[in-house]
């Protein structure tokens, strides 16, 4: 069977969309976990958890869809990334499991509640850090030979990936605090307003270091950004504008804009990262087309996904609609 048209860009789009959906959505609920130990009161923790309890597992849907989709559409990515990130993947999964269980049991528990608090906070931080380190490892590239990962167990854990790990912690915390501004009121919202500029400063600092560091360790990235000044420079400009809008919105004590601006900041950064590397999906050696599965395999799954994704999106939108508005202290999910 001759391929009628190339499905690789379509699949790259689907996976790319899945990843940014995951980062934005699980980002703000992992962020609640990161901010958990610093919350002003136990009541605030109730509100924080209530604000994401109805939606967090739908958010993680995108992670599993992404994992399975990668195996189907870009098996090389799956079979190089997972061995290369072996221990990191385990830590991420363990973290996600612990915080997932905490969601289920914290509200049903009384005397053991502090245990679930720790499980929630620790699991969220572990999973976030591991995800940040994955981004760092991706930027640095993987040691491969004949389509196999041949590096060591700790290649993914470098000073650079530790930096991106902390960057992710700051980033998700920022998503979390601006989400909390949107969803809370009174002294809890005031607290979220107060910490947001600090978190933003941390994010800008880490993203700044990454932006300077990345072209230094990768010829490809340097060539793409500095050989000629092109349209892609609009992305950092967009990111900068997002920061400005976010700061103004926090100063004016606006409700929704901080979260929107933070999402915009993430999207611009994400696109910036994508254009730095594409078409290399397993850097430095393999492109999207090297990594793709057979045309008929991509087509076979695409048919099913085109049917299902609208349903998942509709369901997601409906859930957010049902749980719109402020989360009040003392009411809500038990």
């Amino acid at each position: 069977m001759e391929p009628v048209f190339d499905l690789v860009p379509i699949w790259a789009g689907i996976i790319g969309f899945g990843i940014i959906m995951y980062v934005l959505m699980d980002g703000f609920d992992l962020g609640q976990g990161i901010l958990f130990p610093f919350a002003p009161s136990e009541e605030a923790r109730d509100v924080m958890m209530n604000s994401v309890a109805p939606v967090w597992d739908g958010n993680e849907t995108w992670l599993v869809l992404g994992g399975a989709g990668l195996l189907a559409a870009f098996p090389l990515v799956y079979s190089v990334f997972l061995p290369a990130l072996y221990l990191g993947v385990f830590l991420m999964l363990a973290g996600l499991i612990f915080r997932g269980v905490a969601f289920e049991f914290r509200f049903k528990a009384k005397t053991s509640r502090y245990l679930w608090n720790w499980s929630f906070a620790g699991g969220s931080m572990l999973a976030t850090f591991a995800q940040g380190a994955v981004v760092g490892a991706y930027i640095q590239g993987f040691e491969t030979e004949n389509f196999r990962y041949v590096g060591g167990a700790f290649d993914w854990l470098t000073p650079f990936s530790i930096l991106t790990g902390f960057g992710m912690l700051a980033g998700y915390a920022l998503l979390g605090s601006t989400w909390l501004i949107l969803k809370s009121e009174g002294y809890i919202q005031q607290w979220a307003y107060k910490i947001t500029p600090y978190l933003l400063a941390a994010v800008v600092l880490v993203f700044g270091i990454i932006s300077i560091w990345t072209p230094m360790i990768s010829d490809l990235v340097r060539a793409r950004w500095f050989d000629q000044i092109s349209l892609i420079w609009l992305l950092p400009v967009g990111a900068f504008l997002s920061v400005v809008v976010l700061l103004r919105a926090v100063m004016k004590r606006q409700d929704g804009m901080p979260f929107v601006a933070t999402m915009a900041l993430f999207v611009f950064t994400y696109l910036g990262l994508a254009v730095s590397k594409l078409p290399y999906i397993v850097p430095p050696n393999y492109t999207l087309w090297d990594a793709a599965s057979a045309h008929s395999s991509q087509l076979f799954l695409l048919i099913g996904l085109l049917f299902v994704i609208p349903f998942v999106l509709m369901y997601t939108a409906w859930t957010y609609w049902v749980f719109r508005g402020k989360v009040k202290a003392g009411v809500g999910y038990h």
Partner: protein
Amino acid sequence: MELDPIFLSRLQFAFVVSFHAIFPVFTIGLASFIAVLEGIYLKTQNPVWMKLSQFWTKVFAVVFGMGVVSGIVMAFQFGTNWSNFSYISANFLGPILSYEVVTAFFLEAAFLGVLLFGRGKVPPGIYWMSAVLVAVGTFISSFWILSANSWMHTPAGVEFRGELLYVTSWLEAIFNASLPYRFAHMGLASFLTGGFVVAGVSAWYLLRGREVEANRKALSMTLWLLLILTPLQAYVGDLHGLNTLEHQPAKVAAMEGNWETRGNVPLLLFAWPDQENQTNHLEVGIPNLASIILKHSPDGVVPGLDMVPREEQPPVWVVFWSFRVMVGLGLLMIAVAVTGLVLRLRGKLWSTPWYFRVLQVMSITPFIAVLAGWFTTEIGRGPWLIYGIMTFAEGVTPSLQGWMALTTLIGYIIVYALVFSGGLYYLMRILRDGMEYQPAHDEHSTQTTTLRAKRPFSAADVPFEEGAR
């Protein structure tokens, strides 16, 4: 001691998948049970059916939740420990495994929410339809996963082009030779698991005189179901065995503990297989029976382990004994179901406490039988990962070192032990709470449930600790 990444990866996969499998095998059967209960309720309008359905839906929710949590890990196991296998077979396995995930999510997105939280908010007919579709969905989900697994036993519809497998016929690959038998065998196993758990729990309540009317109804219908399904399962299992004999004779030889290809093979009831010396010790068997079962003639020639080179033999001891555990428990289940019929015909079903106690103990046996069955078929496939195409050694992640596999193995055991004890403990609290405290669906409770998370566990309202209600 040298740490062998292949052995440790197999152990890890066995641990993670066994742990995961016990949840879906239960929820698949339970989902159909709930759909039936809702159907009867819709028809008769007798509230006792609703009470039963509400209670078992709560149990379903928690077990489903644990299945999802443990299933996430599975999605990554193929890549972390078996990356060569994933890479080479991805053209087929990728879409198939993805379809499993996609079906599960579609089901969760569309119908599970209605089943768990929609009572009283959607018309009764629609509510029942959701229950049916959840049950159907669990079967579609298991269809995909069993198709992938069966393909590893009886690969078809693919060819090597260079290093990678390409699909030449999706139909042949998906509906491969062992799929119908495995799917039927597993489907029945799910019903038996659901049935024995419901029977055991109902019996436990009846012994304590709790909600007698509802639990008698549940027990009575379950016993009818078990009476039909337990012998049917033996028959389907036999067909599955014959199918295995055709495609994987070495596995059947290991199941029978038969070292030598010959006629008049006895059915061994007991033996101590000795792989080193290629023989059995302490054999106790029924003459000619294995030949009769497998070849329908006393002198039928049954393949032995000598058909394949020693390095292509599966580990006989484990296969031989896990097969016997499965069959033994299966026979026990038939006996228990028939005993139920005898008691019923004598009119003593509700006045025989010892039988209730037996049912209580029986509720764990399907889980053991299912795991033993999977051990038989999976270990019996050894040393092949994809039968005749790829060995375990060829499929393992090349960069994986023994200590890495050991670290994550211990890690998963710790994580699962904690999660599992939490979940099991909570499940026990739900069972102890029983049906007595279920809130009526009035205006007030509808109000509070809309504020509740639409997630499996939140369908259960039992507090985590003693006396916290």
